[in-house]
């Protein structure tokens, strides 16, 4: 059994009378320590897939296993526990808490779990060692996204889920963020899933899962993933 298994997952939203099929019969697998890119146009079901994987959303039918745990069977406190201990989330718009300093934003996450990493060390690693006492509003977009990543990896999760992490950033900063994510995967051996609509960056991943109209259209395995530094787009 693979580390992560997405098996015949269907997701139907009901908007009043209308039913919208966000995911239909979606299946894929991810191995431990892999860097995975989920590619596809908007509305293809990428985010829904990530939300289900992260325990933020429920599915209509099918099964999702993470490290042997059946995520869709988790409810209530156990589901929260799963998000708390196993998942790190990074969003397009950072979602930092404006009223907390950089270090406090990270501490907010680390105080939750037992085997968390030291916030100062992680912030050093993401290159924000000297901005720890600033508030989010005093940082650039790239810096804020690094805080968000630091907050996510500080929890030492099994799975780092990133939804368009560079969507709001310029080319250069975006590249730096992707570098950080790639490094995290390679050096910390963390499983990282990145959603993007930019196919140009897919060579950096071990596995590329392509979405189209709510289901997986193709899965490509890169035998030799490139260093993001060497990719231009």
């Amino acid at each position, binding site marked *: 059994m693979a580390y992560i298994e997405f098996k015949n997952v269907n997701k139907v939203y009901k908007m009043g009378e209308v039913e919208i099929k966000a995911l239909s019969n979606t299946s894929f697998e991810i191995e431990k320590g892999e860097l995975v890119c989920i590619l596809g146009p908007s509305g293809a079901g990428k985010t829904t897939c990530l*939300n289900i994987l*992260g325990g*933020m*959303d429920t599915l209509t039918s099918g099964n999702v296993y993470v490290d042997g745990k059946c995520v869709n069977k988790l409810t209530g*406190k156990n589901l*929260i*526990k*799963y*998000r*708390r*201990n196993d*998942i790190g*989330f990074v*969003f*397009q*718009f950072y*979602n930092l*808490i*404006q*009223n*907390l*300093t950089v270090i*406090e934003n990270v*501490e*907010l*996450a680390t*105080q*939750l*779990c037992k085997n968390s990493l030291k916030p100062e060390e992680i912030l050093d690693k993401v290159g924000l060692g000297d901005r720890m006492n600033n*508030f*989010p*509003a*005093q940082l650039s977009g790239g810096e804020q996204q690094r805080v968000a990543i630091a*907050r996510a990896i500080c*929890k030492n999760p099994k799975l780092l889920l990133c939804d*368009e992490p560079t*969507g709001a950033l310029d080319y250069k900063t975006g590249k730096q963020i992707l570098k950080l994510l790639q490094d995290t995967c390679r050096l910390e051996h963390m499983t990282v899933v990145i959603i993007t609509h930019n196919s140009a960056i897919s060579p950096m991943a071990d596995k590329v899962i392509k979405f189209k109209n709510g289901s997986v259209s193709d899965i490509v395995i890169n035998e030799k993933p490139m260093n993001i530094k060497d990719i231009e787009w």
Partner: protein
Amino acid sequence: MKTMLFKHIFMKIKQNYKRFLSLLSMALLGIGFYAGIEACSPDMLKTLDKFYDDNNVYDIKVVSNLGLDDKDINSLSKIDGFDKVIGSYETDTYLKLDNEQYVVKVMGLNNNINNIFLEDGNLPNGNNEIVVEKKMLLDNNLSIGDSINILGSNKKIVGTVISPLYFSSERPSTNLGSGKVNYYAYTLEDVLKSDYYSAIYITLNNTKNMLTNSKEYKNVIDDAINKIDVIKEEREDEKYNELYGISINEDEFVKPHWYLYDRLDNNSYKELINASDNIKNLGNVFPLIFFGIAVLVSLISMMRMIEEDRTENGTLKSLGYNNFYITLKYVIYSLLATVIGGILGVFIGSYLIPYVIWNIYKKLFNIPIFLYSINSAYNMLGFWICILCICGTACVICIYNLKDVPANLMRPKVPKSGRKILLEKISFIWKRLKFSDKITIRNIFRYKSRVLTTIFGIAGCTALILAGFGLKDSIKNINDYQYSKIFKYDKMMIISENGDYEKLLNKINNEEIVNKAVDVNYQSISVLNGDIKQDVSLIVPNDFNSFNEVVSLIDYKNEDKIYDDILDDSCVISEKTAKLLNVSIGDDVTLLDNDNNSYTIKVSYIVKNYINQYMYVNKNTYNSLFGNYKVNSFLIDLNECTSDDSNDFDMEYIASKDAISIINNSDVKDVLNDMLSSIDSIVAILIIAAAMLAFVVLYNLSNINISERKREIATLKVLGFYVKEVDKYINRETIILTILGILIGLSSGSYLCHYIISTCEPDYLMFDREVFLLSYVFSALITIIFTIIVIVVTHFNLKNIDMVESLKNVE
């Protein structure tokens, strides 16, 4: 464009129905309470006015010590402006029921004036029939159809009635029995016919069109009384001549004397006017604060909504809608909420609150009707303030928010930057705080406007609740204190002028039930300081040492200090008098006697006194001021005895004509207790209303808090905060704010209570300005209970926040 606008607004309401309802309920509560309390006093007056108009109740009553006749009626009828001048037969008589002797006032039925309201049964048809007040039947297990022996013959009770002259529990005094009428009854006029009328009742032209007791009405009455005064002496002289002839020496006979009364001299009428004044005064401050809090919270709510709609408005603007259109949307939205809520409030408030208050007063006043009225002048004022505040804010915030170009508006607002707070600079405290405490503290300083509103709202409600409890406390003990600590005597006997008072005093002092009788001069007098005038009772003891045994002159500031003398050339006044006249010890006041002579005297002591106003001077001072000191009353302290014994005593001395009248403090106390307990019930309503407001305010603010921080809360959920932890994160703030609010509310509430007392205290009462510890506890507890309820509701609201929805990339 127009239909689009209304479509937009309709959608807005549908989308934000919770907010719409909360705005609506705020307006409803605020305006409703305001309108309701304001309506009570006018409703009561209008009811009284209608009751009196419907029953042709007199405007002026003329009584003579020697009776009145048709000649008097004739000369009164000639006076310009008088409508009806009608003589009436009345008599006070004994009624024996079950070995108990009562005094009944029997009045002749007259269709032209002071008509009675038939509650049950029929009006008398023949001379052997009688109608009585219901209380008489209830007290004595009688029913309609029974016969009683009264006025020398058996009469069948054929109905129960309400007299417009005696609709409160207070009955007039009499020279029979114990000096007080027990019940009233009506028979046909024939039964009572005699040579003289007992009273002449007069109604004036046009007074029916005026509200009774209004300024206009009082002016007309004053004019009319002046007109009667012109013919009064002439009538009195003529009567004298008629009775005794001209030649006889005047001193040997009782001179005829006319007494003129208006409606205010009727106890029932006066009590209702006082009650109406009480509720009016009580309602001066309460609803205003109430109203203020409601408007403030609505305002914050509206502000939040416009900020939330930022992106949507940006889109509208980019589509070409102008600022006016967008602003109009919110103005109409808030207008709809406040107008609908306000109108509902006016209707519900103007009926419900007077209904409840009238039901409380019904125990005191037996009036079969009640008029509800929607008093537009008052309501409109509250209405406009409310609309102006809420719609005005909508305008201002819209204009402020729409200044930006559409492109910027469509982007999410740049979040307000976090800021370090002062406390962080004091690192030895900051370091010690737990992480979660730091967040809480910083958040409190971040959302200043909401936090301040919350604190102010909670403080306001707590203060209102405490003021309510404080008012209850302030009236709780005054009656007992007055009649056990200050006045130890039980009866005041006004003695006949002609007898030998020393002999009588001796006799009374030797009565078995009497502990001590003290002789005093007792009279009414006016005291002035500059333009301020107060009517007080002047008591001049004949011998201070014995007086001291029945009245304690307790220092108004120090309860342990009891004065054992009254200094020469100075006076002692009650605390309330000093307050109203604005004088302190050592100041001079002016006395004004009945003949308008004025005398200046120094205030030497100010004494505790809760009921009525008193002045004490010693005999020397009295003689040097007015001369000719004369004992006219006894203050009688009884030993432990039954009320029957006390009653027998009264009957004995009234019968022997030694006493003109006897006033029992226990009766005074009862009447007062009725009134105080009605104030008590009204205050209970105020407390309930304030508590309701507290709940709505807390609930609203908590909703605003959550909607403002949806994204933050969703982030916490994604990070894996447990439900309890999310609750804590939000509620820790609520709890701190509630505690702060309660503390501020409790400390300001006692001031508010004092202020309300100072505005609502009638001149003849002095409330204790004391708030009991328990009231503080209750007020805090009520607010805490509401906070807990709100926390529970918040728990579910937090649980329902959808992470995916709240964190969607574009707001």
